[in-house]
């Protein structure tokens, strides 16, 4: 309505205080964004093996809907059974176990995948070396770098030592990595003959139809790749959700304390001027808007600064720490923005109450 923007003018008239307030609130927002981004990035990386698989459908033991921390054991006979179903183009078994790549210099948690040579389920692309032969393993290049390994080096996992035949890329995240060995080597190491963990299936109909058909004709659980990936991601998110919630709450409380303190001190420093505005006829509502607008400007500027810093952090980490990926999206930014507005409004409560108590007569008192 073209009114004098008193709140904005007051906020930016004291640039040092405004900058400190905005920087402090931005730091708390950055904490939330970075944590959420790291969890999202890790989740996305965690499901990369599934997401990049050629399978339309993942088949597991009845009731198993993901890989992480799951135990799925199927008779290999199920593979033939599935291959015989209409609309099934191919079906290949894989063995899976969580373990740790171990070297004299360190350890890295890993998913170990056993796949049949020539079948699906192995590495999609190799950045160096070749597919694993007997007694050989393919590990991710980032894990190799972290463990100071290279092609033709050796690493222990599944209770034995393997020769590294090749390197993949993009399968290491902040939590773990993925390694590939031959199916029969995996079965021999774990002494699980004629057993598969999962069966990867490709078909000539939609993944949903294919999954329904497999479940209707077997005693197994079948999920389209996207659904299987979603289940895997949800589990990872659930595991980190509580920590994330606590950290987010702590960050917002820090932001609330900063914004409350900045607004309150700014209000105290202008009590005389608030008295003048009241004497001139400012309604309490207008004065509340003055305080609130300072809060919202602080939140808005802090959010913008936090986003810039978060994207910068993401860019820096992508180049300096290959196993940490920060994934931002509207799903993270919108809640932070809404949370920021709530923080701003709450932070303005005490100053608004203080403003209401200012007596306009105070302008005459000396």
């Amino acid at each position, binding site marked *: *309505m073209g009114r004098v923007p008193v709140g904005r*003018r007051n906020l930016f008239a004291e640039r040092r205080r405004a900058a400190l307030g905005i920087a402090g609130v931005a730091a708390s927002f950055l904490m939330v964004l970075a944590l959420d981004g790291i969890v999202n990035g890790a989740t996305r990386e965690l499901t990369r093996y599934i997401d990049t698989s050629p399978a339309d459908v993942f088949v597991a033991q009845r009731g198993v809907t993901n890989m992480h921390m799951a135990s799925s054991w199927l008779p290999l006979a199920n593979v033939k059974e599935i291959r015989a179903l209409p609309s099934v183009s191919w079906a290949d078994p894989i063995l899976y176990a969580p373990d740790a790549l171990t070297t004299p210099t360190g350890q890295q948690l890993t998913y170990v995948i056993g796949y049949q040579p020539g079948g699906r389920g192995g590495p999609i692309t190799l950045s160096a070396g070749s597919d694993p032969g007997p007694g050989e393993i393919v590990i991710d290049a980032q894990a190799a770098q972290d463990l100071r390994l290279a092609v033709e080096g050796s690493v222990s996992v599944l209770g034995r030592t393997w020769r590294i035949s090749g390197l993949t890329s993009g399968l290491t995240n902040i939590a773990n990595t993925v390694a590939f060995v031959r199916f029969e080597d995996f079965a021999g190491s774990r002494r699980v003959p004629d057993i598969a963990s999962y069966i990867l299936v490709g078909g000539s109909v939609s993944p949903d139809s294919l999954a329904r058909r497999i479940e209707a004709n077997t005693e197994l659980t079948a999920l389209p790749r996207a659904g299987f990936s979603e289940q895997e991601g949800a589990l990872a998110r659930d595991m980190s959700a509580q920590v994330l919630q606590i950290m987010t709450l702590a960050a917002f409380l820090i932001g609330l304390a900063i914004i409350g303190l900045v607004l309150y001190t700014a209000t105290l420093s202008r009590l005389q*001027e608030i008295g003048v505005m009241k004497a001139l*006829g400012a309604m309490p509502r207008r004065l509340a808007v003055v305080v609130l607008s300072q809060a919202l400007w602080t939140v808005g500027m802090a959010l913008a600064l936090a986003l810039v810093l978060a994207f910068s952090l993401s860019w820096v980490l992508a180049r300096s720490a290959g196993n940490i990926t920060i994934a931002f999206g509207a799903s993270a930014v919108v809640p932070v923005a809404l949370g920021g507005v709530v923080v701003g409004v709450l932070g303005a409560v005490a100053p608004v109450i203080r403003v209401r108590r200012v007596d306009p007569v105070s302008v005459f008192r000396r």
Partner: protein
Amino acid sequence: MATSAIRVEKLEKVFGEGQTEVRAVRGVDLEVEPGEVVLIMGPSGSGKTTLLSMLGAMLRPTSGQIWVDGTNLTALPEAKLPELRARRFGFVFQDFNLLSALSARENVELALNFAGWWGRQARERAERLLGDFGLGERLSFRPDKLSGGEKQRVAIARALANEPAVILADEPTANLDSKIGHEIVRLLRRAATEQKRSVVIVSHDTRLKEAADRVLWLEDGEFRAMSQMATDPVCGMSVEREGTFHFVHDGQTWFFCSAQCRDEFAGVPERFRQGAVVAGAGRRP
């Protein structure tokens, strides 16, 4: 109802109760006509500020009535008072009291916002007023970049912006040198004469008497006859003839606000005699 811009009847203000009770204003009656300038003087603690606060609808009287431009302030609910202040009154404060984060134009525009003027209309009116006061080149200057005289001119432009019926000025010439103080008095006088605004000034500055149609002396919460007052030849303050501090020189009795002024006068009386004026030009309401 008479045509008075301000009419006050039997106004009382009591603070505290029992042993701590203070009667700051005692049964004051006052009428101010449109276009009239009334100067209220009195010693510190005499009730001037309390009276001004009640006239400006900032403080509720304990008893009595105040009519401003035909509206009985004492009958209005608390929530209506800010709007009344914004539309009917212009305020000029000691120390200017401009908002430090706003420009000269925004300080005036803000008062217009409170009075219901917004956007371009308010901005243009603020610019015109400041231009009339010779501040056309200072519109975007914040108060810390303005001189004392410029600040007070902005404050007067702010007070006139909403076309008020009444201007209440609290020590408008304090902290200003005599030249600028004179200019400020002239502006207030002009607002009364040309725009028929009633101006009530509370001040210790005896120079303001020249611009006032009436001078009232408030002491102990009551108006007293100015004929009983004299001017301290040293500091210029109005003092009671029955005051404690006096000095007889060359057959004439001189009155002082303090022993310090009396002693200073006694040292070299000739230095002060020429400027001494006996008060009493005011008329009582």
